[in-house]
């Protein structure tokens, strides 16, 4: 015993339930390989799949019937034959079983888009473990609640003759453990019970389970057995630092993950992209010119694929794999769906040349892959790029690209060189505060933003002529030298230049939006006071838009003045 008292009091690690806000389903298929195999066999008799491992032919897949007869995974074939002389056997096909599981994962996307494979287990026992994880946060109500969802899922598996153990919990670790150890498969092989752990109660559900439910390695499980730690609760009773000293970091991490105290991500398995081209090179390429040429070829091939199916790419993903397996990935959004290989190639060329550290080809790039990860149907094959044949001596008689496509191509090129946040379009926004009345939205998102703004101020827009053609990025404080209360200044200093005002018009009073606090937006500090705007012209003929921040003697005693814009 490492510790005389496995449950020291007071407990150094109070187990506080932490609501993760996620709902996860772990599915475990204990007889996946045996139940789904296509190898013909007599279904009424026991059947097992065998494979070589640990220096013997051993059982790696069973049917429920065989399990009932007392066989277990990992048993050597000789022992199994001694138990069951008429056992039907066949060689296992692990690759095909995995492929069937992948297919099943795609099918499960009918419940949630977020279906992932088992998180990597620490224990590599050599036996394949077939299970899937589903993140069903926010999906259960579509199927009539969590219980109905699980029942529906299990009924569908049952109809196909597949044993599926399911558990739903708030963490990956708890769901994984409960699916496998929540109900003993040995005592009740046909059990298809569903386990649902309400949010925040993972601790109660997990602590009685054996330590193996924590996804520990074989060595750790053995150690737990030797120490007499039969449940996770025993393990959790120790101080975490002692556990770490004895076992290494893994059990503590797994424990915290199961209880929701440590985060764990789930990678969804996504179907391979439909439009995908790749190129393997016998020798690595280091020269940028050659690389650009290869990327151009890939783009042309992808464009052919896209064009024949009437699609245009909206997003391109390029990955370059070096000979030392380092991967450089580039992703490129397009403003309009495009099936123009030349255009894509130019965008990549531009993008690669703008990489801040350049492309580090190392000992050479050996593998190039290009995928159109988001596509949209386009009508008809695209003309070759209008932009480059627009020179008048070439275009005579030739059709020009549709303006919308030409504009999209231009946006793509500008964005790939200048950056997405730089190429913008003004989109009106419902606000009376001048600097908030318009938003500069990146062109790639501007179309969506145009439609989104439901409450426009079109009914009572300010007269455009009263607004400056050029607005400063931020109001700049000015030093007013001669002023009269409640009036425009006579003389002021802006950017160290003195201006004598010869004409003034105003004030236009703009109050802070009193409803901003109600809708949850907190107004910024400079938006909390009433502004009086004046349009001024100085003796030189320069025209300004200035405001005084705050009402005299009501909101402030020393109002500050700001320059906000200039008139042409």
């Amino acid at each position, binding site marked *: 015993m490492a510790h005389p008292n496995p449950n020291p009091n007071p407990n150094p690690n109070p187990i506080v339930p932490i609501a993760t806000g996620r709902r996860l389903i772990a599915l475990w298929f204990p007889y996946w390989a045996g139940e789904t195999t296509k190898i013909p066999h007599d279904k009424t008799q026991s059947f097992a799949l065998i494979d070589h491992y640990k220096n013997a032919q051993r059982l790696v897949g069973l049917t429920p019937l065989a399990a009932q007869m007392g066989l277990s995974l990992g048993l050597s074939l000789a022992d199994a034959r001694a138990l069951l002389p008429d056992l039907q056997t066949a060689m296992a096909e692990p690759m095909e079983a995995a492929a069937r599981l992948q297919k099943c994962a795609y099918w499960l996307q009918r419940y949630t888009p977020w279906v992932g494979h088992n998180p990597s287990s620490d224990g590599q026992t050599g036996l394949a473990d077939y299970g899937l994880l589903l993140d069903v946060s926010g999906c259960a109500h579509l199927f009539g609640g969590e219980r109905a969802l699980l029942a529906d899922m299990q009924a569908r598996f049952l109809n196909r003759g597949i044993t599926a153990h399911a558990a739903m919990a708030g963490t990956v670790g708890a769901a994984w453990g409960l699916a496998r150890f929540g109900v003993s498969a040995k005592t009740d092989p046909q059990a298809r019970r569903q386990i649902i752990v309400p949010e925040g109660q993972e601790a109660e559900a997990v602590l009685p389970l054996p330590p193996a439910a924590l996804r520990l390695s074989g060595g750790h499980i053995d150690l737990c057995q030797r120490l007499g730690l039969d449940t996770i609760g025993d393990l959790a009773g120790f101080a975490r630092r002692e556990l770490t000293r004895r076992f290494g970091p893994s059990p503590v991490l797994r424990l915290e993950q199961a209880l929701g105290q440590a985060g764990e991500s789930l990678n969804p398995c996504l179907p391979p992209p439909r439009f995908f081209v790749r190129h393997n090179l016998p020798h690595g390429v280091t020269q940028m010119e050659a690389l650009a040429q290869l990327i151009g070829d890939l783009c042309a091939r992808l464009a052919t694929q896209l064009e024949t199916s009437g699609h245009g790419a909206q997003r391109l993903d390029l990955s370059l794999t070096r000979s030392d397996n380092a991967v450089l990935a580039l992703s490129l959004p397009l403003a309009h769906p495009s099936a123009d290989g030349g255009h894509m190639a130019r965008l990549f060329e531009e993008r690669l040349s703008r990489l801040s550290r350049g492309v580090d080809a190392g000992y050479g790039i050996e593998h190039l892959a290009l995928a159109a990860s988001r596509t949209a149907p386009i009508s008809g094959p695209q003309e070759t790029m*209008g*932009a480059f044949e627009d020179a008048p001596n070439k275009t005579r008689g030739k059709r020009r690209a549709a303006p919308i496509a030409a504009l999209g191509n*231009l946006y793509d090129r500008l964005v790939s060189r200048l950056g997405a946040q*730089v190429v913008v379009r003004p989109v009106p926004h419902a606000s009376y505060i001048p600097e908030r009345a318009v938003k500069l939205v990146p062109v790639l998102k501007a179309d969506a933003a145009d439609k989104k703004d439901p409450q426009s101020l079109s009914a009572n827009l300010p007269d455009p*002529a009263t607004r400056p*053609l050029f607005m400063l*990025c931020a109001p700049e404080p000015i030093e007013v030298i001669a002023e009269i209360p409640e009036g425009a200044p006579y003389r002021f200093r802006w950017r160290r230049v003195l201006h004598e005002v010869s004409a003034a018009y105003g004030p236009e009073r703009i109050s802070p939006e009193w409803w901003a606090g109600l809708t949850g937006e907190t107004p910024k500090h400079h938006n909390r006071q009433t502004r009086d705007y004046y349009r001024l012209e100085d003796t030189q003929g320069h025209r300004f838009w200035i405001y005084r921040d705050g009402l005299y003697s009501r909101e402030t005693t020393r109002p500050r003045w700001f320059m906000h814009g200039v008139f042409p």
Partner: protein
Amino acid sequence: MEPKPAAPLKHTSKSQKLAKLRRLVARFEPGVAHGPHIQTGFADIDAYLRQQVVPAGLPCGGLHEVVATRVGDMPAALGFAHRLAVRFLDRPHTQDMLLYGQTHMACREAGQPYGPALPAHGLSADRLVYIDGARLPDLLWAGEEALLCSAIGCIVLSSWDEAPSFTASRRLSLAARAAERPLVMALGAQAGGSASAATTRWQVEALPQQGWHVRLAKLRMSYTATPPPEGWRLYPQSLSQNSAQNILQSQPRGQAASRTARAG
């Protein structure tokens, strides 16, 4: 490249040579004489252009520079550039976009175009694409790219303190001529004055009572015309018909004081 004014008598043979060379060069250059052109909308300038140059207007295919005379005149220069751009865009049955690009410095110093004010200056806000700060070489590159795009009707680039080199302006000028699309380059007072291959260069200065003093500093369309050195005094009316109100309502100092005194 600037045509020399009044050659001395003993160099007559040289001026003849120059004239011959100019005729020769005119044959190689993409012509501006036949391309589309616009009227600026200012009667005096249009009258002058009609008399002096071949296309009888401002050619669409060309690089036009608008330079602020003093530091504070950049808004006026940008306003004039915007006015030219709107005239270039104002062709029937087109919904071409205006690409407006600024260097980082111009963004900070001269401000960004303000969407709600655009209708008063003859442009609907949804026809504007704006480059919100870039280095000058990137901006010139963007201008050249945009010249090749059939959906862009006019390009305005503005720089506060550095001007494109002669080579760059020559390149842009040729690209604009080939594409028959205008590129308007607005330059701050610190950036003006360097050599450039622009088709026209306008010097703009703000005048009291919403006026501009515009001088045509350079005219490359004709070798004989010398623009009037005194320039033109322009008082642009508001472009849109529905807002007849002037940008600033002039108010004598005394009146303003008495009004505000009453208010106080």
